[in-house]
């Protein structure tokens, strides 16, 4: 639906937002993006996973193995304090960006 570049540029932002409320595991994050975007944005495991790795290395998210009865353990990702700040900042930038882009592309609406 959207092109690759757009998807790639927003992926981090999307992931951080989705785990803001509670920790989620990798596959769940992908499914959630797909569901909330009504199928218009979807990530395969192979492309989502490196982003998770990168976010984790940057201390924005932290992964932790969680075991539940009768299931294999899964790696859950949660937002770190740094990640939380970063997400807040990103939201501000995003809003400003959308506003600014709208100013440019639809001057009459502004």
């Amino acid at each position: 639906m959207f092109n690759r570049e757009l998807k790639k540029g927003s992926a981090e932002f999307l992931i951080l937002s989705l785990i803001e409320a509670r920790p989620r595991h990798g596959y769940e994050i992908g499914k959630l993006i797909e569901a909330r975007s009504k199928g218009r944005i979807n990530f395969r495991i192979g492309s989502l996973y490196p982003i998770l790795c990168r976010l984790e290395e940057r201390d924005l998210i932290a992964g932790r193995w969680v075991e539940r009865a009768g299931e294999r353990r899964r790696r859950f990702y949660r937002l770190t304090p740094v990640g939380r700040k970063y997400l807040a900042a990103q939201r501000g930038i995003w809003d400003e960006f959308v506003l600014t882009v709208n100013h440019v592309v639809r001057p009459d609406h502004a």
Partner: protein
Amino acid sequence: MPDWTQYVRQNLRLSGLRAEREAEVIEDLAQQLEDAYAEALRSGLNPSQAEAAAKTHITDWPALEKHVESSRCGREAMMKALQNRVEDRDLAGGGKFSLFTGLLQDVRFGLRMLRKNPGFTLTVAFTLALGIGANTAMFSLVDAILLRPLPYPEPKRLIVVGTNQLGESRMSPMGTADFLAWRDRQQSFEQVAVLDGAGSFALSGMGAPERIPGVGVSANFFSIFGVAPLKGRGFLPGEDRPGTPGAVVVSERFWRDHLDSDPNVLNRALTLDGKHYAIVGVMPGSFRFPASDPVDLWAIRVLSPPAGRPPFGLHAFGRLKLGVSMRQAEAELDEIIAQVNAQYPSSTPLAGVVMPMKEWMVSEVSTPLLVLLGAIALLLLIAVVNVANLLLARATVRQREIALRMALGASRKRVVRQLLAESTMLSLLGGTLGLLLAYLAVRAFLAFGPGQMPRLNEVGINSGVLLFTFVVCVGSGILFGIAPALETNRPELSDPLKDANRSFSSASAHRTHRALVVLEIALALVLMIGSGLLIRSFVRLSNVSPGVQTDHVLTTAISLSNKYSDQQITQFWRQFLEKVQALPDVKAVGITMSLPPNLLAITNPFTVEGQDYDRHRRLQLAEEMSVSPDYFRALGIPLIRGRFFSTSDRVEGEKDPMIVIINETMAKQYFDAKDPIGSRIQTGDPNPSSPWETIVGVVGDVKYSGLDSPSEPAIYVPYNENSWAGWAREMYLVVQTGGSAQQIVPAIRAELASMDGTLPIGRVRTMDERLDESLMQQRFRTWLVGGFAALALLLSAIGIYALISYSVSQRTREIGVRVALGARPSNVLGMVLREGLKLLLSGLLLGWIGAFSATRVMRSLLYSTSSTDVVSFVTTSIMLIVVALLASYIPARRATQVDPMVALRYE
């Protein structure tokens, strides 16, 4: 269900990730694929369709690999740099406050880094803990024994005085005549006192008779130290004059263990060596003098003016008057001793010497202690070098982070400070652990170490020791932090930014790294050579024959109380020896004044018939002792010429010609080719009117002054000879048994009790045990230094291994290319080993130079081993070479297994 873990593992080729991280990645991906597969099944697909659907999630495996691997470092450094740039900006505010906050940030950031690498942090902390702990422990000994002033008021004014023979450097105890003259004529000291060398008293009248460690002292003894008694008083002036009743001061321990802490202990009577003493005081447990072997009794020593100048055996000391120097005191003493020389014209002229009391107490242990401290400091240095290498290796990995931070505006000073803060924190962590180790080590030393050391009761971890540890920590932190920190000074710093994936190692960092390993090898070699020398010396010492049979021989000390007259003494021994000889299993029994290997009682000058009587000639001394006829058989001392003494040699009360037996050394030195049997000698100071003594036998040499002393001339006389009878009051009993030596003890005790119920038997030791104990100090320090050397070897092996592994990993691509171009495994192996060998050879060279100068200080600790002993140098070097080659062989083997395809993909 498909095995997704297996599937991922087959497809994902990760390299350069830690094993745990790699496993995590695989597990996480497999779990996600399984989730996808499960969902596909739920949506109605059959298993094979579901599997295919799940597999579409990851199609471009190489891209995934690349992303996972690249996310590993670069970004992390970027974030940190960004954060620190903000901190740097805060710092630019200037002023003291911001410097302080900057420091706090350094510490916070440092802690974060350490927490992030727990494996690294722990390795470093433990390495340092070992080094710092060992140093702290040893320093606490050196501090208590050598550095701290004596625990008495104004300890510098406490001076020991003695005499020595002309041309002799060590101080000998004084004779009574000398002491009395000095006591009465000297003007330099506020007070003077004396202590005799006797080691114990026989305590009787309080249950079973017992030997209690104690000394005889003169009246001023306690007031010189200025230590207040726990109860009662010290001695009163004049209490040591002839004709005064006996007085004794007891230790707190004795008061507690033998007198049940009796509150009315004062004036209670004690029977010591058969004489009555009244207890006048109790000294607190902290008072220990003599310092090396705590005593429980200080009995008043009555000093009557002697008939002649000898015997010598008094340790005299005094408290200097204010404003009088040691030199003045020595000049005065020397003058008084010269007057005594004139008073006894036939005696060997002596000179007076003085020495600070502390030096007198600790001089014997100071060299071994300082050598041990030096060895341990070397060990710490090796540990520090190892840590520096680890940090340096990490610094090359962290270079990108540092480069970024500097590119983003952090000043170089700031970065260096940050790195130093980190290394100091590491060393403080190590130091804290080390302190714990030191505490345990000191406790262990006090419990199991060689007990005969002065001032051990003062050893502990105190503020001085803590300060030492702190300084060592900060010092080593800076030492091992400085090399990596200086690496930031490189102009090529921007290079690391250019490539995201490669890890960097500048040529200079590698050079530093190599130099450190060379240094480490050199230091380890110095320590190993030192320990090699000690081991060799110890082996030689252990193989020295004491000259006697050591198995199946039981020894103990027995001393007769003062109620025995000289004549009764010889009667007592004759009967007692007969009784013991009659016991079953006793092969031979004898008594002696001196016992091998190190319990020599006296030495005596002698003159061989025909020598002149010039009293200024070089003094010739022999170890002289009275023994019973069967002494030689009891100890298996071989007869070389002539005969042993026999019971028929003397009939009590009659005057027979005096006879002696000499040892082989004396026969060789003074009778050369001549047969000494029948020759005559005189003993005592050269004097033509001394009685002549005829040599009737020559026996093998026996060590009486320690296994490490050379054999000296020795003269044996019969114990029952008139002039020697008085000396036989305190004798060692020597029993050779057929079976186990210990089993005979109760029977001997019973025989002794049957003759006199008040006589205690001293510590019972087999001759083997005595030999063992005489080597305790040497054995202890040999083991200790050997242990340090082993640790040093291990640390440097780790150092070499780490460096070569690191360099192999850096050269993987190069090696891959070589292999691809046809290099054979042996070429690769040789190439890597050569690198290790180069380091090794430089290290060995440096180590030899170091060892040549360092081992010189050990000379006094070595027994018939040169401090440049070739065998020690060569064997330890070979050992180091073998270990070092092994340490480089392992990574070299790994290098030969490099798969060129993998290596080339590495980039």
